[in-house]
């Protein structure tokens, strides 16, 4: 984290005074942004449908979230506050780079606080703190096509979507149960959006799938290499596929977070020393921090207002 080079203001947001000269606001040219916004509008109008778009070269290699970056660049405005997470953390190289990128090319404020952000770009997680209708969640997507493993022909997958021929999606679930006694897919677990399109939620843990359902925030998905944008509008039904006699379930842990004690967040197992000592901690680093702050502040508050 490069907080030292930035000024933290009272909101916990960081201001980026040094905007790079010679670049358009948020890097992309206006024509490209308009094209991407049109794709986004179409995606919002047809929840879960993959809209092709003319993906641009970005100053990052594919696989580093170029799809998400292009979506963010097309929707972000001067007054937005951006949060970037990678596997739940604000501090990984990828998250820091993307945050700096928008700091420098758009001069927008950035934050680590989920509830302060207006735009959140994410790779592989949905924040634990529930999102509001004033926020937009932008996912980085590596493989947008949920039918690809079954059918490699693009013409055929498009037809399957068009005709809602989705029965074969259950072949994958069947196969899992037949071999392991349960559905073992734990990331990128396929969902059906608004009772219509089958959609890949990007490689978030299935733990996060229920958060997508009727989420108040707009969810946008960008796949740079595959040149696809799709969306889940606010308050839209999102259902994880399952069998009647093998209903969808999420991960749970015996342990609580070793740092904040939370028992209802997604936990990562980390190794803390050379002896292989393990502990479980929240994957959402900001959530964990806030839980710890709440714990330390709680007695004070109780004394303060007596409630």
């Amino acid at each position: 984290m490069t907080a030292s080079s930035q000024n933290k203001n009272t909101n916990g947001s960081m201001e980026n005074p040094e905007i790079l000269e010679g670049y358009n606001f948020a890097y992309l040219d206006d024509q490209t942004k308009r094209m991407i916004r049109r794709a986004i509008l179409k995606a919002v109008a047809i929840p879960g449908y993959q809209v092709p778009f003319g993906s641009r070269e970005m100053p990052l290699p594919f696989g580093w979230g170029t799809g998400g970056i292009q979506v963010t660049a097309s929707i972000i405005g001067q007054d937005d506050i951006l949060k970037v997470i990678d596997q739940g953390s604000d501090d990984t190289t990828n998250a820091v780079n993307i945050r700096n990128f928008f700091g420098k090319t758009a001069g927008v404020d950035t934050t680590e606080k989920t509830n302060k952000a207006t735009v959140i770009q994410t790779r592989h997680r949905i924040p634990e703190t529930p999102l509001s209708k004033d926020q937009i969640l932008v996912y980085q997507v590596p493989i947008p096509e949920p039918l690809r493993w079954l059918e490699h022909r693009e013409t055929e997958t498009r037809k399957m979507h068009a005709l809602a021929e989705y029965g074969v999606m259950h072949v994958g679930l069947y196969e899992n149960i037949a071999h392991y006694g349960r559905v073992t897919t734990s990331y990128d677990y396929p969902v059906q959006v608004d009772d219509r399109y089958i959609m890949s939620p990007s490689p978030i843990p299935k733990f996060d799938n229920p958060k997508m359902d009727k989420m108040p925030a707009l969810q946008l998905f960008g796949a740079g290499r595959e040149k696809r944008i799709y969306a889940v509008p606010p308050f839209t039904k999102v259902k994880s596929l399952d069998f009647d006699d093998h209903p969808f379930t999420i991960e749970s842990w015996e342990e609580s977070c070793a740092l904040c004690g939370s028992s209802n967040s997604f936990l990562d197992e980390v190794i803390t020393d050379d002896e292989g000592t393990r502990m479980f901690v929240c994957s959402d680093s900001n959530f964990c921090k806030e839980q710890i702050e709440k714990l330390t502040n709680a007695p004070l508050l109780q004394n303060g207002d007596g409630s």
Partner: protein
Amino acid sequence: MTMSLQNPLLKVENLSHYYGDQIGCENINFDIYNGEVLGVVGESGSGKTTLLKLISGLLCPNAGSVAFDTRIEGLRDIYKMSEPERRLLMRTDWGIVYQNPKDGLRMNVSAGANIGERLMAIGNRNYANIRSDSSDWLEKVEMDLERMDHFPETFSGGMLQRLQIARNLITKPRLVFMDEPTSGLDVSVQARLLDLVRGLVSKLGIACVIVSHDLGVMRLLSHRLMVMKSGKVVEQGLTDQVLDDPQDPYTQLLVSSILPV
């Protein structure tokens, strides 16, 4: 057999298809009735596969029509239906057994998943039911239940064809298309597979169009026989009649084994 009171299950009229200047098949006419097995023989390149594709919804003809007796609306031209309707027919009322099992199976999922796929495709969402129907069908095609969770790669040619048959028949289709289902198999494997097909088809009363080079196969399986040459039908009739008393000179050569088929 007198079936004239009944509507045909499939009605093919003046059917032609050309690949550029090349004739695929030309001016084909026939009807198939419920439970009837129609054999199609002819030398390589005579248009058998082309005809099978045309009548099974896989290839849109240049001319003529293919009508199927749909459950609700009776005879309907399959190429005038909407695509979703036609595809629904293909995975419910029809079955297609391909010459190359790799074209008809998912090689990356287990035998059970291959057999159960059609059930899932038509909306079955109960794992236990799908599983028990699939294993019933594995037994009906005389395969070991142990094979249920094995991948098709580990199966022999004859077993792959059994798997294709089970996968197709599980939705109780009324019409099944088979393109050379036994070619490439050992003679003894062929014979057992043919017995199985014959047994299932007659027990379930499924109508069938079978393409083969092999007159022996036809004698065993088909009620009626159609002989093709250069894209045209040169003779058709009851199988025994055609084979025992061929009228067309080309059929006479075929039957007398002077021509290799």
